[in-house]
């Protein structure tokens, strides 16, 4: 087949290489999620929640992250659908799967938290917590340190459409635009039009959720999150603004929710929402960049990788009774009762 230098979407384009790299991550993310859904049904895991339908945007997000530890790097305040972002950041699939498998080796939570609830200090991924939108109240804090520190580190905060109803969404806008104290916060709203069973349009009158930034002078974009090329460029502009201007930016991505809300609602594949991977593969095929057998190979490889990760995780130890208190407290030189960690009620 012929190869092209770049792939277009509307007026924007991305190099063939980049497109293929994005596609690869998207497929790996999907394969992993699908395997995790299976785990939640087979007893290999338990609960599932995740991001099938958000791979295009989330992969591009991960590829834009300035990855590292501390204020020189980007901070991530994510929600529970960001698996593709972590894979794009080159984090091993195995670690996500360990969480799905409730293993004590799960680096994010030691088998304590639901899948998709990441925490990795090494890459500035602050712990994902289930109460929606609280991350928007916390995000300004990391940006305060980044702004004061200098450099171009950005604070990225991600949440859903329904979650924007919580007051914390407003808190983030206000705290990011204090006069003279503007913060490099990239506020991302993943608009899948649903909060569990409740349609966004039944509760919200805003044309776009990010329109709310206007009163605060926060520039904003909306983007088709099913289109990785559009997403790539929207993210590029957003990051550029935050990195250079050290001011906030808002980005709203319309995305699909391809397996419903979570395993609690069955996690069955829905058929009436666009699939960003199928769409992208169509585009790459038309561009002559990816033949059907290359696609098949990508999927097969991804599924094998996921299967191997599950196999590996399931061989690893589960939490033991003695792990219950671990990591409640960090060691402290000024605590007479718990110099190391929590050990039960004071003795």
């Amino acid at each position, binding site marked *: 087949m012929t190869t092209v230098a770049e792939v277009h979407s509307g007026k924007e384009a991305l190099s063939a290489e980049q497109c293929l790299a994005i596609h690869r991550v998207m497929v790996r993310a999907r394969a992993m999620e699908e395997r995790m859904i299976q785990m939640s049904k087979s007893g290999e895991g*338990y*609960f599932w929640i995740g991001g099938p339908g958000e791979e295009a945007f989330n992969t591009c997000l991960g590829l834009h992250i300035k990855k590292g530890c501390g204020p020189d790097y980007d901070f991530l305040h994510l929600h529970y659908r960001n698996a593709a972002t972590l894979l794009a950041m080159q984090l091993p699939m195995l670690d996500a799967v360990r969480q799905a498998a*409730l293993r004590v080796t799960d680096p994010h*939570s*030691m*088998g*304590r*938290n*639901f899948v998709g609830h990441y925490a990795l200090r090494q890459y500035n991924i602050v712990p994902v*917590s*289930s*109460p*929606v*939108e609280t991350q928007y109240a916390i995000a300004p804090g990391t940006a305060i340190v980044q702004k004061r520190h200098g450099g171009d580190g950005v604070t990225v905060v991600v949440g859903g459409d*329904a*979650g924007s*109803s*919580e*007051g914390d969404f407003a808190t983030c806008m206000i705290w990011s635009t204090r006069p003279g104290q503007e913060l490099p916060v990239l506020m991302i709203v993943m608009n899948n039009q649903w*909060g*569990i*069973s*409740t349609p966004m349009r*039944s*509760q*919200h009158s805003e044309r776009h959720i990010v329109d709310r930034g206007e009163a605060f002078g926060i520039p904003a974009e909306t983007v088709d999150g099913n289109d990785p090329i559009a997403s790539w460029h929207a993210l590029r502009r957003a990051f550029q603004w935050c990195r250079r201007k050290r001011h906030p930016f808002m980005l709203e991505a319309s995305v699909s929710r391809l397996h419903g809300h979570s395993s*609690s609602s069955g996690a069955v594949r829905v058929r009436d929402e666009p699939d960003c991977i199928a769409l992208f593969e169509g585009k790459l095929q038309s561009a002559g960049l990816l033949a059907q057998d290359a696609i098949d190979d990508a999927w097969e490889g991804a599924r094998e990788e996921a299967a191997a990760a599950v196999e590996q995780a399931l061989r690893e130890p*589960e*939490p*033991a*009774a003695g*792990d*219950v*208190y671990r990591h*409640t407290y960090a060691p402290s030189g000024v605590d007479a009762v718990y110099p190391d960690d929590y050990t*039960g*009620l004071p003795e």
Partner: protein
Amino acid sequence: MATLVQAVRMALHYGETYLGVTDILGEDVGPPLGGVFTATQGLATAWNTPLDERGIIGAAMGIAYAGGRPVAEIQFCDYGFNTIDLLKIAGNQRWAGAGNYELPLVVMTPSGSGIRGSLYHSHSFESWASRLAGWKIVMPSNALDAYGLMLSAILDPNPVLVLLPKALLRVHGEQLIPGEPADQEYLKQLIDAPLGDRSNWQPRWPDLDEYLVPIGQANRVREGTAATVVSYGRTLPLCVQAADALAAAHGLTFDVIDLRSIFPYDWSALSQSVLKTGRVLLVNEDTEVTNFGEHLLRRVIDEHFYELEVRPRVLQGRHLPGIGLHQTYERNSVPQLAHIQATLQALATEEA
């Protein structure tokens, strides 16, 4: 027999049909879902709110101020911790406002562990709630009580919090709710929404009767002499099981008291039983530092210290930041049957 969650649903139907309930509001409580636990399926006044717990409690308060009778749901009690200031206001407004307003507000929320809910679907709320002066707090452990307490909560002109034990929501009752058809499959056909498309579904409500469990009235579910055990919610049936096992194996009999109301609690039931047995075990699964069971213990010490034959016991959840998803965490965080039974046996057999 109806499950606990079906009982709640029937109570809400009774409430909106006969007791003036105007609004059943919360995240996903309206059609098509009818609540993540199905508690609000098919109800005429149920509607979906924005994902905003502060808005839910606030709006419900406003509805109550304006003469409505709202039942607000917090999807999981775990997500109610940003509303405690509003709950406090609901509890203090009448006192602070010199009795100007009644606030006939019901808040219901699933509470406790037992569905492998990880950190944020396993919280207990009763110890927090018991500190909210001006509120009444109830927690049924079976379907009939759920029905009767919910009706009382609706009738009471004060804010009432109904804690629903997550672990027991799908457990069938042992007693019929007045008006409930005896066949539980038939009941299901009448009032459970079908899977799949529900747009044309309508519930067919049985012809229910009023049944009230007064607020502040405990239920002695087993009678005995060896000791008193007091519990509510998920751990109550475990206490019953433990008591029955000890009766069968060792002939030890117990007063098992289902508190049902956390506040006001039925002090006289508790007190009389302790005076009779001289031995008491208080069981709940909330975390053990500043736990409501410790309040009950304090009352026991205040009033019956010299009547106690042996050291009174309290079994509670561990002081931990959360309950982990893996079963090993959960089993080692909150009281299980084996803990309860062992403690009860030790209590009953300790020499006085």
